[in-house]
Structure formats: C-alpha cells, structure tokens
C-alpha cells in the first residue's frame, strides 16, 4: 500500500517534470551519488514561491552534474519573512553559505557583517564578467567602494497602459514623446466616474525607483547623491508632488488612497480599473498572471523641458561570513550570475529581469514580457538611475518615512508642503543619527 502510494507520487512528479520540460534526473539518486563521494554541502537561504522552484531545481541538478563534489541544500523563506529570518540567523551564527540580498538591504547587511566583502574574489576571477552587468545594478551592492554582493535581477520603472481602455475611448496609445502633461491630460480624458474607471492608478511612490519616476521628470530627487541628506525641499520636487496630488484630488483622474484600496491586492491598474500606471520589470509576471486585459508599456513620460528620468532597482546574492567555503560559494555564484546562468534562470522564464543587457534582451521574448518590452531595455541604457535610499545605514528608516508620506498624500490626509516638511525633518534626523557609523 505504502509502496504503491510512493511510486504513484514519484510517477506524478516525473509526469509533471517531463511535461514542463524539466530534466528527468530526480534529486534523490543524485543525492546518493554525491554522498558516496567526498562532497561539500553548499547551503542557501533564499525565497522563491513554489511555482518557480522546479526551475531552480533544474538549474541546481545541472550544476551538481557539472560539479559532482558539491551538494546543494536550500532553505526557502517566504519573500515576506526572509528579511526577518536572516537577522536571527546572523545573531546565532547559523547563516547559510549564500543568501538572497534585496538591494535595499545590502548596505546594512554588509555593515552588520551578514554578507562578506567579495570584491577581491570577483575581481580575481578573470572569466567572470562583472563589467558586463549594468553598472547601476552593481552599484547597489558596492559598500565603501567594495563589492559585497552581486545582482541577478535589475529593472527600471516605466509607463504601463491598458490597451483595452485606450481602444474603448478611441484614443492613441501613449507615445514615445509624451510628456508628463500629456499623460495627465490623457488620464483626465480616460476617467469616467460613472463607469468607475480612472486614467491613472494613483500609486504615487517615492521609494526605491519610484522617486525617479515621479519626481525625476521635473529635475527633482528625493535624496542627494551620496544619501547624506533629503533633497525634497526644492521647487522641482514641490512642483512634481503638486502635479500628482492635483491629478488625484483636484482632477479626480486617479483613485485616491481610499478608493484604490477598493481594489484587491491594492493594484487598481492590474485590476483593470485604471488606464495607466507605473510598471517595473519585476511586476510583469504577476501582470501576466492576473490582468484580464491587453496591456503594454511605453517610455516614462518626459518633463516639460524634455528631461527623461526614472528609477531602477533589483536584488542579488551574497556570501556570508559563517561560510567556511566562500570559494565553493563563488563557484556557484559565478555560474549562476553569468550570462548563461541568467538566461536559463530568468530570461527564458521571465521570472526576473537579468542584470545583464544581453540577458534582458533575451528576456524580452519571455511570456511575461509585454510587446514593447524593449522600452525597459531602452530605459536601462538611456535614463534609469538606481533609486535611493540604499546607501545609507538609515535607508530602512528613510524608506519608511517616504512610504508613509506618499501614502498620506494619496489619501489626501496631508498637504504637499506638510509632506515635504515631514520628510525633510524626519529623514534628515534619521540620516544624521547614522552619519558617524558609516
């Protein structure tokens, strides 16, 4: 009975594996072979939802075939809990060899000794082409000028639009030479309160990447370049925030914070109730899975003077100080984060946007990539800048403040002036407090 159930399960596993194109080599037998030889175990702490694990397993099986002396052991955290589990691991000294590092965590984790300085390992490896990665993506993990982790995914934020809604209104799709004013005018035109539809989704965001999209066109920045002070108290940022605030609360061309919560999962653009919203490479898979309409992307609209700007962000992997075999860990990462590794893992699946230009080009043919996905590539080449805060030890506090005030602006519970004052005062206080620790 028991045996039968087992074999039935094994059969189902194989059937599913073959149907999704996964190599048939099961993990079980491989593990046994590995144990028989003198092997080292490489441990991972990362997140992937269940749906993406077959891909990861397929990659790892291939890796273990190439390196029969290395055995891979993964601990999966959820995305939501990874950042909470890692500090506990670090405090107890139980970190795995390799951990997933969100771009916003690289600086504090490097500072707290959760990830090690891999600058010399990376530069000593002549075959590993670190210069072939977007410089903007590597910058996320460079702490005090030295590389502490490497990106696998990096992408920009550009304009997304609902083709069906533009078609229904008989309007032209967003053009390459659109300015923010053009976008606002279209948003007003597409809004129809009786139908419960809006032109823009109102998801004002000032955090990593969002700041570049929402204030960059006016020439503004949320923080100064080295992230030692907030820079929102400028005419440019004020003008930008007034633009978006008025579009929501005066023109009514976007759902307010309260109204947009009416959309499950807090994404009225994806729900199909708004014609336009900002969209990043990392949100394309869920768009593909959940959106029930035709959609595409366009370049981030320009400022009145032709300034084009947006933010980009991403994630990577680092090696921990607990690891007694950083060389073995590097053996894995150098392949995983090579162009081939990236293409296999993310370009073909579309689950991430590779941090290498060639990888992103291949990604454009994946299922989640929209028809005009080349605009993502263009943004990376031409105008996307990695979005603060990520270099300061107080990045998490500053993110918090920016997120809170953007939320209050969307709700209409604060004014642009009050938000700017609060961000400046509290943000600078948080930054000053860590100024000596950096």
């Amino acid at each position, binding site marked *: 009975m028991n045996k039968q159930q087992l074999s039935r399960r094994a059969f189902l596993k194989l059937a599913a594996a073959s149907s999704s194109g996964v190599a048939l080599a099961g993990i079980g037998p491989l593990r046994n072979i590995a144990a028989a030889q003198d092997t080292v175990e490489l441990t991972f702490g990362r997140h992937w939802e269940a749906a993406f694990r077959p891909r990861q397993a397929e990659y790892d099986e291939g890796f273990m075939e190439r390196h029969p002396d290395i055995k891979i052991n993964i601990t999966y955290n959820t995305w939501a809990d990874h950042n909470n589990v890692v500090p506990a691991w*670090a405090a107890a000294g139980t970190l795995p060899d390799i951990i997933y590092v969100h771009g916003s965590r690289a600086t504090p984790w490097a500072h*707290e000794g959760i990830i090690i300085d891999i600058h010399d390992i990376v530069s000593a490896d002549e075959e590993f082409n670190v210069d072939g990665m977007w410089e903007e993506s590597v910058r996320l993990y460079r702490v005090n000028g030295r590389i502490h982790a490497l990106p696998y995914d990096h992408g920009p934020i550009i304009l997304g639009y609902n083709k069906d809604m533009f078609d229904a209104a008989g309007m032209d799709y967003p053009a390459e030479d659109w300015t923010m004013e053009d976008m606002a005018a279209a948003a007003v035109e597409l809004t129809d309160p009786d139908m419960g539809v809006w032109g823009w989704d109102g998801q004002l965001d000032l955090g990593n990447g969002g700041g570049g999209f929402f204030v960059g066109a006016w020439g503004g920045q949320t923080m100064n370049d080295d992230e030692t002070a907030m820079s929102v108290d400028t005419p440019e940022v004020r003008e930008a925030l007034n633009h978006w605030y008025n579009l929501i609360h005066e023109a009514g061309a976007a759902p307010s914070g309260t109204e947009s*919560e009416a959309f499950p999962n807090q994404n009225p653009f994806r729900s199909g109730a708004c014609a336009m919203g900002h969209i990043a490479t990392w949100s394309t898979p869920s768009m593909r899975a959940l959106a029930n309409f035709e959609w595409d992307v366009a370049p981030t609209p320009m400022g009145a003077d032709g300034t084009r700007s947006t933010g980009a962000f991403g994630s990577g992997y680092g090696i921990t100080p607990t690891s007694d075999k950083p060389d073995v860990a590097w053996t894995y990462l150098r392949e995983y984060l090579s162009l081939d590794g990236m293409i296999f893992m993310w370009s073909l699946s579309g689950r991430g946007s590779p941090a290498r230009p060639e990888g992103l080009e291949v990604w454009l043919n994946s299922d989640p990539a929209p028809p005009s996905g080349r605009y993502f590539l263009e943004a990376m080449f031409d105008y996307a800048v990695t979005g603060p805060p990520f270099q300061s030890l107080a990045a998490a506090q500053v993110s918090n403040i920016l997120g809170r005030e953007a939320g209050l602006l969307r*709700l209409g519970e604060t004014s642009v002036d009050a938000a700017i004052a609060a961000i400046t005062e509290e943000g600078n206080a948080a930054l000053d407090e860590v100024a000596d620790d950096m």
Partner: protein
Amino acid sequence: MLRRYFPAISASARREERIFYLFILPWLIGLVVFNAGPVLGMLGLSFTDWRISLDNLQFIGLDNYAKLVDDPIFWVSVGNTLYIVVGRVVFGTAFALFLAILLNQKVPGIPFFRAVYYLPTVTAGVAVALVWIWIFNPRLGILNYSLKQIGITGPPWIYSSTWVKPSLILMSLFQVGPNMIILLAGLQGVPKELYESAEIDGAGNWAKFRNVTLPMLSPVLFFVIIISVVSSFQNFTEIRVMTEGGPGESSNVLIWYLWENAFIFLQLGVAAAVAWIMFVILMALTGLQFRLGRRWVFYEA
C-alpha cells in the same frame, strides 16, 4: 524579607508544600531552561548597542531608553496602544460574554452555531488579507454595502487615520472565539442547583444572572479580562498584514514599533528596551487588576 515568604510551618503543611513544589516542578524547570536565559538576556541587551551580532557589544547604559523617550513616534504608539487595548478589552469582553450566553442557550442546532462562531479564529491566519477586502473594503466590502442599503455612506475604515483604530477594534470582535469558548466553559460549569434554588427564591432572569451567573463566572471572567489586556498589547498579525502602522502613524502600536525596530531598522537593542517598557506597563496593569479583582472575583477556596 525571606521570612515574609517563608515563615516557619507545621509538619503537615510542610508535606503539602513538598507536593506543591513537586507539582510545579516541570514548569519551574521549563522556566529556568527555556525562559530565564532569553528573558534576562533581553534585559541585559536593552542596555547595549545590539544591532545583530552578539559579539563586541557596547554597554550604553540607558541610551536606548532615552532614545525612546525622545522619539515622538514612540509616544504616539503608546497612545495608540492604550486606545486599542481599552477598546478591545471593553467591547471584546462584553461581546464574548454575550456570544457565550447566546451559545449556552438550549436551542436546536447549537453545536453548529458554536462551530460557526469559532470559524474566524480558525481561519484568521491564512485568509486574513482577502477577507478584509470583502468586509472592510470601502467600496465593495459587505460592511459598507450593508450600510448603503440603509442609506448610510460607510467610512473608509482602515484606510483613514481617523477610522483605523475603531476598525481594528471592530475587527478584533471577529476574533473573540477563544474568550467566548472560555466563558462558555465557565457557564457550563455553573451548578444547576444554584439556579434551581434561586428560582425557588423567586429570582427572575436578571437576578439569576446577577446573583448566580456573574459570581460563579467571575474567576473565569477575570481571566478573560487579564488575557484580553495582554493579547491586545501583543496583537501583531493584523497590524503587520493590513496596516503596517498606517495610515501615517495612526495604527503604529508598541508591538509594531518593536518589530519595526528589531527587524526592519535592525536596532535590536532599542527593540529590547521597547519590550521591557511594554512589560512594565503590562505588569502595572495586571497588578492593578489583581488588586481590583479582590473586590469582585468570587473564589471557592
């Protein structure tokens, strides 16, 4: 001082004392092995600059506590916590007692209703995010939809600084399952004879409730109130899943403030200080309740 706790006693009393200590021995061992270390560790760590690593800690005296006193958001979170605790305890206990009495009625189908009323407690963890869309959603939620049917425009609930705290209190009423069950068990334990003799004395429903049910239930009710205060202080899931302390800081309660400092800002020393402040506040409140409890709680022994 020791004399006060350990006065001289007789031989039979000493035997009873030995049995007492024998019976609580497992708990005592658990206390020393599993709790003492972490708890005292937390006290010590609250005086250090602990961020993550436990090596090279600097003793910084009361700096973490001073930092909290200076932080306006800390005081906002103290205020928010007290608001929500008072609301949850008062309405939650009253509602739990009301439901327990309802479910203690001898009407057909009561086991079914008990299960139904307990469902939100069971399903809380997994379905929470989706459920509130259905209930609290300002536009499409069942709550505002129902209000609309009777001509009232519902508030924006958790999406407004004014409404978020009342909403959290209202939400907590769905989670009264455990308290309801405890009170139900308490009601079931009231000997029938007491009601019968009260009826012979000509007592009406209210008099029976006042003179029989409440005194007999008082130890359990006391427990429920103490536990409600504690769990209201420590309730974390809804804040994390739904509001993350917002909008603004309007639902930033102490436990969220603690979590944010520990796991988002990586200031574990500060978080340890918050934990101790929460502990002291709760100790004071619980001590006060025990003192007040002497006046209204009726014990057999």
